[in-house]
C-alpha cells in the first residue's frame, strides 16, 4: 500500500507542476508563491519543533554508554563512547553527526541451523553516509544560484565535485552518488522483509520525492536544457525579494522547484526532523558522569515514602526480640 500510494503522490506532484506551468501558465504560483510559502513553512515548522523539544526538560542523565566509563587510572576508559565530560560529549556528537558512528556499529544477526550468527553489516552506514553527504554538497552547490558572484569555496567545491572532467556540462560526482544513495535506501526498504514490513507511506514518500528532486535536477542539467539565465533571474528574484517568474525557462525547472518546495514544506512535519533531533538526543549528548556530578530534575517533586519510623513501629517487637537496635524501645 505504502509504495504505490507514495509513488502515485509523487507522480501527481510532478503532473500538477507540469500542468500548472505548461497549461495554466501559473509561473507566479509555482515560481514565487509556493517556494516562499514552502520556505516559510520549513523555517517556522523546524524552529517550532526544536523549540517544542527544547521545552521538554531532560530530567535524568541517561547516556547510553558504549564503552568503559571513568574509573581508576589503571583502567583504560573509552572517552568517546562513555564521555566523562562535555568536551568528550562534543567529540561523540561530532562523530555521530558527521560520520554516523552508531550506524557504523551495525551488525546483522542470522539463524543458521539453530545457531545465531552475528556479523558486521556496513551497507546501510555506507550508503546512508554517501546519500547524506552528497545531498549536503548538492544543496551547498546550489547557493551559486542565490548569489550574484559565486563565492570561492563554492567554486572550489564545484571543481572538486567535477574532478573527473567527464561530459558536457561536466558531470558532478555528487549528482550520481546522491541518486545512488537514495536509490539504495529505497531498494533495501522494498526488498528486505525486516525493513519492508516496518515501513510506512511516510518512509517511501520522502525517498521517492528526493529521487524525483534529484532526477529532475539531473534531467535539467544534462538532458533537457533550460534557460539558465532565466533560472538565475528567478532564484535571485526570490532572495532579493523582487520575485519574477519568466515563462521562457521550461517546465522541468518549475517541476524541480515545486518538488523541492514540497520537500521543504513537508520536512518539519515528518521523520526528516531527525536532522534536528539527532543533536538533542539525551542518550547521546550527555556525559556519563552522574555519580560525579549532580544532575537536577527541574520538575522533581516530593513523593510519599515509607519512613524508617513507620517501619520500626510495625516491626519493633520483632526487632527487639532479634536483638536488632531500635530508635524507640516502645
Amino acid at each position: 500500500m505504502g509504495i504505490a500510494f507514495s509513488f502515485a503522490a509523487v507522480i501527481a506532484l510532478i503532473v500538477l507542476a507540469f500542468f500548472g506551468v505548461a497549461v495554466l501558465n501559473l509561473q507566479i504560483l509555482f515560481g514565487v508563491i509556493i517556494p516562499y510559502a514552502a520556505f516559510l513553512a520549513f523555517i517556522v515548522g523546524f524552529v517550532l519543533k526544536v523549540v517544542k523539544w527544547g521545552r521538554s526538560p531532560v530530567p535524568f542523565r541517561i547516556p547510553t554508554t558504549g564503552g568503559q566509563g571513568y574509573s581508576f587510572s589503571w583502567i583504560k576508559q573509552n572517552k568517546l563512547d562513555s564521555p566523562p565530560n562535555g568536551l568528550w560529549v562534543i567529540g561523540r556528537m561530532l562523530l555521530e553527526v558527521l560520520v554516523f558512528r552508531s550506524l557504523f556499529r551495525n551488525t546483522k544477526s542470522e539463524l543458521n541451523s539453530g545457531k545465531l550468527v552475528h556479523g558486521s553489516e556496513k551497507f546501510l552506514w555506507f550508503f546512508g553516509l554517501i546519500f547524506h553527504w552528497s545531498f549536503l554538497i548538492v544543496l551547498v552547490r546550489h547557493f551559486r544560484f542565490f548569489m550574484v558572484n559565486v563565492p570561492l569555496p563554492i567554486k572550489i567545491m564545484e571543481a572538486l565535485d567535477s574532478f573527473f572532467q567527464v561530459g558536457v556540462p561536466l558531470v558532478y560526482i555528487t549528482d550520481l552518488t546522491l541518486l545512488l544513495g537514495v536509490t539504495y535506501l529505497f531498494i533495501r526498504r522494498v526488498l528486505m522483509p525486516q525493513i519492508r514490513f516496518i515501513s510506512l507511506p511516510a518512509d517511501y514518500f520522502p525517498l521517492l520525492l528526493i529521487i524525483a528532486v534529484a532526477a529532475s535536477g539531473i534531467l535539467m542539467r544534462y538532458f533537457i536544457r533550460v534557460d539558465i539565465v532565466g533560472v538565475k533571474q528567478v532564484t535571485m528574484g526570490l532572495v532579493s525579494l523582487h520575485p519574477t517568474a519568466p515563462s521562457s525557462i521550461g517546465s522541468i525547472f518549475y517541476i524541480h522547484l515545486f518538488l523541492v518546495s514540497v520537500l521543504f514544506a513537508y520536512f518539519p512535519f515528518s521523520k526528516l526532523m531527525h536532522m534536528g533531533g539527532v543533536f538533542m538526543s539525551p542518550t547521546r549528548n550527555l556525559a556519563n558522569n552522574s555519580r560525579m556530578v549532580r544532575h537536577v530534575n527541574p520538575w522533581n517533586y516530593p513523593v510519599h515514602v515509607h519512613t524508617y519510623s513507620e517501619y520500626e513501629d510495625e516491626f519493633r517487637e520483632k526487632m527487639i526480640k532479634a536483638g536488632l537496635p531500635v530508635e524507640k524501645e516502645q
Partner: protein
Amino acid sequence: MAKIPKPEQLSKIDLKPKKHWSQFPIDIRPGMYCHGAKGKDLKTLELPNARDWSPAEVDWKLPEDWKQTVLDGIKQRLERYRSFHIFMDVCVRCGACADKCHFFLGSGDSRNMPVVRAEILRSVYRHYFTPAGKLFGKYAGARELTLDVLKEWWYYFYQCTECRRCSLFCPYGIDQAEITIMGRELMNLLGLNIGWITGPAANCYMKGNHLGLEPHTIKSSIEFFLSDIEDITGIKIEPTFNRKGAEILFVTPSGDLFADPGTYTAMGYLMLFHELGLDYTWSTYASEGGNFGFFTSMEMAKRLNSKIYAEAKRLGVKWILGGECGHMWRVLHQYMDTFNGPADFLEQPVSPITGTKFENAKATKMVHIVEFTADLIKNGKLKLDPSRNDDLIVTYHDSCNTTRGMGFMEEPRYVIKSVCNHFHEMPEDTIREQTFCCGSGSGLNASEDMELRMRGGFPRANAVKHVRDKHGVNMLANICAIDRATLPPLMDYWVPGVRVTGTHELVANALVMKGEKERETNLRAEPLPGKGGE
C-alpha cells in the same frame, strides 16, 4: 502453567516477517506474559485502579475514562521528558535496531523489533498529537487508541527488558527502554502492572526488600550463611545490623539472601568484609539494592530508592557500598542523586584499606562492590589462591544495565581474572556494550512467562553454548542478582552443564583468610580441586 516447547522446537525461529507488523493479530499467548498485578499490592503502593484482574479475561476492569487518562498521560510525559518527545518524532524506521533485540531474535515476532515496539505507541502519538497524523491518518502511520491497542501495548511493553541494546545501534540514540518505561507508566495509570513487579515493589515499600523479608528474618538468613562459612573456613564472622556510627552502609539485592546461587555471593561479601575488618553495617530497612519501582514508574522508583539515603543519614555512615546487581546500579548511577540527593550528609568515599579516593562516586557517594574489590586486588591487599577455582572454566556475562547504563565493563573482568585461572570471553558481538540480556530483566523473571524468558535468553544462551563447545566453559559469572536467579534455568534449558555464579563467590573461594583452616570445599560445599572428597 503453559507448557514450554522443547529447545529444538523453540529454536525454529523465522526472522523474516511475511507481512506488515500491523497485519498480525494480537495473540496474548500463555507462557509469554506475566499474571496481572494484585489489587492488594496496587493498594499498598497507592497506585490507581487497585483491583484483582487477569490478562486472560476479556474484561480488564478498566476505569470508565481510561482513554482520556492515557492521552493525558502521554501529553504530560511529552512535556516532562525530552527523550520521550524526541523519540516519538525522529525515528526513520531504518531497521538498524530490528535484529538487535533478544526478544525478536528469540521469537521472530515483528512487534518485538524495537522499532515496532516503539511504533505501537508512536502511532497513537501521531493520531492525537501531530498535524501529520491528524491530517493524513493511517497514511502518516497514525492509529486511534482502542482497547485492542491498549492490550497490544501491555503485552509488548512487558516483553521488553529495558536492556538498551537497540539504543546502542540507533543512529539517533532512540532508546526503547525509555519508551517502554513511559509505556509502563501509562499502564500504571490504569492499574495494568504485572504481579511479579507490584508484589516485590509492595514488599520493598513496606518491609524494605523485594522478598518481603522482615528484619529478624534478614538477620537469621545471614546467620545461616555464617554457620556455613564457619563450617568451610573455621572462621566465625559477626556482622552488624542497623548499627549507628558505622563507616559504611552496605546495600545489596535481597535476592542474594534467599536463593542459590546468589546466597554464595552474599557469603562472599561477608567473608571479604570480615577479612578486611571493614567497619560496615547491613540495614534491615534499606535492605534492597534492586528497584522494582523502576519497572513501574519513575515516581515509584524514587519512592523505593529514597530508603538508601534516608538510612545512610539515620545511621550516620560516611558512604555507601553497593552489591552486585544490574538494574540496581543503573538506578544508583543514573538516577539516585537526581531522585533523592544531594547526599551532602555523606563524605566522598575513600577505601579504608587502600586509601583510594573514589573520584567517580564523589557526588552520589555510593561505590560498586566490584570496583571496591578491584582496587583491593590491584593494591595487593588480598591474599588470593586462584587455583581453588581451577575446576571452573569461566566466562562473563555483562549485565545490560551496568554496561549500557554505566560503562562498567573492565572492573569485573579484572576481578574474575585475578581469582580464576581459566577465563574465556564469549564472541565479541555478545559482550561488553553489545551484551545480550538474560531475557528476564525489568521484572519479567516470573515463572508463568517461562517461554518468553527462554526465547529472550536465546541469544545469550547461544553465545554461552559457543564457548562451552569451544573452551569447555562450565561457569557463567555475572554481577547481577537477577542474572543469578534467571540464568540457571536458561542454562538448563539451552546449555546444560553450565552453572551460574556471582563474582564475589569466586573471590571468596580464592580468598585466603587469616586464621582459616585448610579448606576442603568451596562455598557450595563441593570438594575443592585436588581435594578429592570421594
